[in-house]
């Protein structure tokens, strides 16, 4: 019912538009905002002198569920009480007994949270940790929906006050947290960059949490250090929700707290 010349005009206009879209891409305008490339490193993360590949390793034979890791992390990051960036779950195993499972940000190599953030506020660093830039986050909580491990938290209210000298505001370390944005375990990359151990590794009284680096092939729990790849092979480590294909970087040594004497 449309006269032919209108259809023709529409077609020409359409072709022109597609063509201009292609032109824009060629000039890099669309390319620049393409998510094919991960967002550039944010403030505070440029300094990465050794090029590590961080992983965490948690020995469940040693975990007794004490929660020291949670408290240590909350202390270091000045978190409100309800935000447990490393959360110790008490779960039932297949024999009917209990075991404890500390869950922190899994540092997925294929992070679903990064994929859904509309403003690229959460991003993946080359060495593994996933960070949130709370000066960009709009608080839509889409990342919380996408994370299959439930490790993201929202700052519903104003966090407790922090003295001036302890404040820090960039994607690497945000103290205090910003109200109305999403917060989560930052894998203590801010500590590793200064050769300090992550808060949970440091606080664990059972030496159950290890931080490892694949580049130097070392894992340490603060007291002992081992060759990472060999240790992983020998202890048959596993990961959580492997079937989702998120490729997390937190490995667990199966156990139920049986190895409390070490």
């Amino acid at each position, binding site marked *: *019912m449309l006269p032919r010349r209108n259809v023709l005009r529409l077609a020409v206009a359409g072709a022109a538009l597609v063509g201009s879209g292609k032109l824009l891409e060629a000039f890099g305008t669309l390319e620049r905002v393409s998510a094919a490339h991960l967002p550039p490193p944010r403030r505070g993360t440029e300094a990465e002198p050794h090029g590590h590949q961080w992983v965490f390793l948690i020995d469940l034979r040693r975990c007794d569920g004490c929660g020291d890791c949670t408290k240590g992390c909350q202390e270091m990051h000045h978190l409100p009480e309800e935000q447990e960036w490393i959360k110790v779950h008490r779960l039932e195993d297949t024999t009917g007994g209990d075991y404890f499972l500390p869950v922190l940000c899994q540092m997925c190599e294929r992070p679903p949270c990064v994929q859904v953030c509309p403003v690229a506020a959460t991003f993946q660093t080359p060495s593994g940790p996933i960070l949130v830039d709370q000066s960009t986050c709009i608080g*839509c909580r889409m990342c919380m929906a*996408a994370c299959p491990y439930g490790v993201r938290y929202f700052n519903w209210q104003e966090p407790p006050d922090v003295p001036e000298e302890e404040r820090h505001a960039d994607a690497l370390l945000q103290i205090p947290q910003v109200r109305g944005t999403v917060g989560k375990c930052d894998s203590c990359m801010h500590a590793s960059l200064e050769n300090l151990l992550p808060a949970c590794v440091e606080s664990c009284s059972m030496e159950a949490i290890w931080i490892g680096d694949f580049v130097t092939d070392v894992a340490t729990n603060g007291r002992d250090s081992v060759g990472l790849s060999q240790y992983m092979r020998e202890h048959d480590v596993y990961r959580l929700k492997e079937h989702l294909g998120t490729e997390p970087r937190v490995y667990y040594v199966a156990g139920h707290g049986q190895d409390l004497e070490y």
Partner: protein
Amino acid sequence: MAATEPPTTGPQAPSETLADAALRPVLHAGRRWWLVFGALVALVLIGVAAYATQLVHGLGVTGKNDQVFWALYTTSLVAFIGFSYGGALVSAILRLTGATWRGSVVRIAETTALATLLVGALFPVIHLGHPERVWEFFVTPQFNSPIVWDLVAIATYLLATVVLFGLPLVADMGTLSAHPALGPRRRRLYHVLSFGWRGSHAQRRHLENALTVVAILIVPLAIVVHTVLSYAFSLTSRPGWHSTIFGPYFVIGAIYSGVAVVVLATVLYRRAYHLEGWIPAKVFRNLGYVMVALAIAYGYATFTELTTEGYVSEVADAAVLYTLVLERYAALFWGFVLFGLIVPVVIVVIPRTRTPGWIAFASICVIGAMYVKRFLITVPPLTRPLIGGETATYTPTLVELGVVTGAAAGIGLIVMVVFRLFPVLAVYEIEEIEAQERAEATRIAPPAASPQARA
């Protein structure tokens, strides 16, 4: 504008024209109108105050928590944008299928679509922790995100709805600007908005072409918009959300609830302004049939989803299923089934209750039940823990209820204001349909209906 009551003689006085009827809400605003208007304004103000509280104190004033982080606002977002699909159906789909009975409701349908979409599109901003940062969408968008797709889709759909509302209005503005009862300000407004419409052949042809193009365009656009809206849920790995049926599910639900909103708005205006002669009961019967078809489709989708999950009963899926069908949210779910699926179908199917009044009641049931259904899609899956821990709960706070109520009142307010300015009946489209029907009749009828034939 005389603040008089509309004439109580109805359907209409014999000499009353279509134009008179279409302009009745514009010309007559009685006490009842002002009462309703005042009440809606009050509710909107309450909503604004509630939102201001949220801006000042943060999202902690809502009942949300780290497990149930999307609740009433997300529900309202999906529901209200879904309500706008009545316009797409009545104005576009019925135009494309040549349903001649649509003429008397197209204006109301387009208006409710515009109003619900405008208000619904506010909720993505309302539920943000930092609404002032929305400009980042335009500076550092991350194109893999369903939220960015939402922005593009809703903006495009809003434009299409505005065009679908505005173009036929131009014709009415031209036709009605000479109406004797109009005051000088309205007349000037109509004159400006008529763009020189005189009803010539050429102008009609241009408008018809344009409306056809927009109607064709808005159908896939509507499908895309609500599918993209569903992706915010289904493109996550959450049990209860990660389901392939979500796209079609949301679209069908949107059209279903949208038609119900059109029915409700039409019944209200028909009753309030005695437009029974111009909006015949047939319209409601037909809209009722459409609702039945959609109810069946939506019920089918719902139960297919439940059967698929329930039969295999993977641990996490089964947990969501149980909380929905048997445990905490069972009352809401089965209430939805009863009032959203069964009651409306029964009302339309039984000839006795196939009346405008009963169908209006059915539409109220549908609107309420579909709002509840969107809530049931959003919240119960979030109450289940992902790894370990306890089942979370959610209770909306006064702030959330206030904002949602204010938004709903805002929809009514927009509709009321629009029909104080613009005709409630699409004069051009009604005439156009009548002209087409007459042309059809003369074409089909034998060329000489001579008296001999009757002998």
